[in-house]
């Protein structure tokens, strides 16, 4: 484990992914589930940038990381808009209370 080894970054990414997966699996609040998705996307980005830095030395991985960040922004905007719409309809954002997609 040192900043000059690829495996330390991959381990960090794996830990972040596991925590994000745990959040997605256990939370009942829809916003918390979205937070878990953000953690998972961040861990994937760490892997992209780390592989780009250590293996090839070019910046293609960084470009992919920027695309992932862009898609994460779009996902957060649409996801939170859906959460707000669900809250206006059901007055709850518990994912188990919102199984049906209509009133």
């Amino acid at each position, binding site marked *: 484990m040192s900043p000059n080894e690829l495996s330390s970054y991959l381990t960090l990414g794996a830990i972040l992914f596991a925590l994000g997966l*745990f959040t997605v699996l*256990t939370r*009942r609040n829809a*916003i918390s589930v979205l937070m878990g998705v953000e953690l998972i996307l961040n861990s994937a980005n760490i892997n992209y940038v780390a592989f780009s830095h250590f293996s090839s030395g070019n910046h293609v991985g960084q470009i992919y*990381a920027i695309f992932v960040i862009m898609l994460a922004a779009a*996902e957060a905007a649409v996801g939170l808009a859906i959460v*707000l719409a669900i809250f206006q309809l059901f007055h709850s954002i518990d994912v188990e209370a919102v199984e049906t997609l209509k009133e």
Partner: protein
Amino acid sequence: MDVSTAVFYLIALVTVVSAGMVAFSRNIIYSAFSLLGTFMGVAGIYVFLGADFVAAVQLLIYVGGILVLILFAVMLTHRITDVEITNRAAGRIPALLVVALFLVLVIQIVKETPWARAKEITFAATTAKIGDSFLYEYLLPFELASLVLLGAMIGAVVLSRKEIKE
């Protein structure tokens, strides 16, 4: 242990601890604010990896945009007075078992794989190279990204407007 290693450990610790707060905190406000520490820590990791532009983008978009969106959604949806039950979790123990198994497996794979590695690792400014790539070989995905963002923006506006029933 030199200074950069110590800083790396500090940043990794901040990232993991605040991600753990996101996963385990009982209060959704704490979870949302811990996300700040995770995003900043990941930006620091990008700096260690020589990705200065990605680190800046991470700060601008994640900390400045997505985190604020999430905080707004938290404030707009749950009743702040009853903080005890804001962030319920269900099925923690099976999920913990599955996730721990997964983590052990992945870390084992990371440790045992002989990763290929460049001979010489250089640190150079990346912004100009990334801009060139966006306007040459990644031009089509770059333009599609603008369409995706436009679609997402219109979709978010349509979804979150108040419907007026006649």
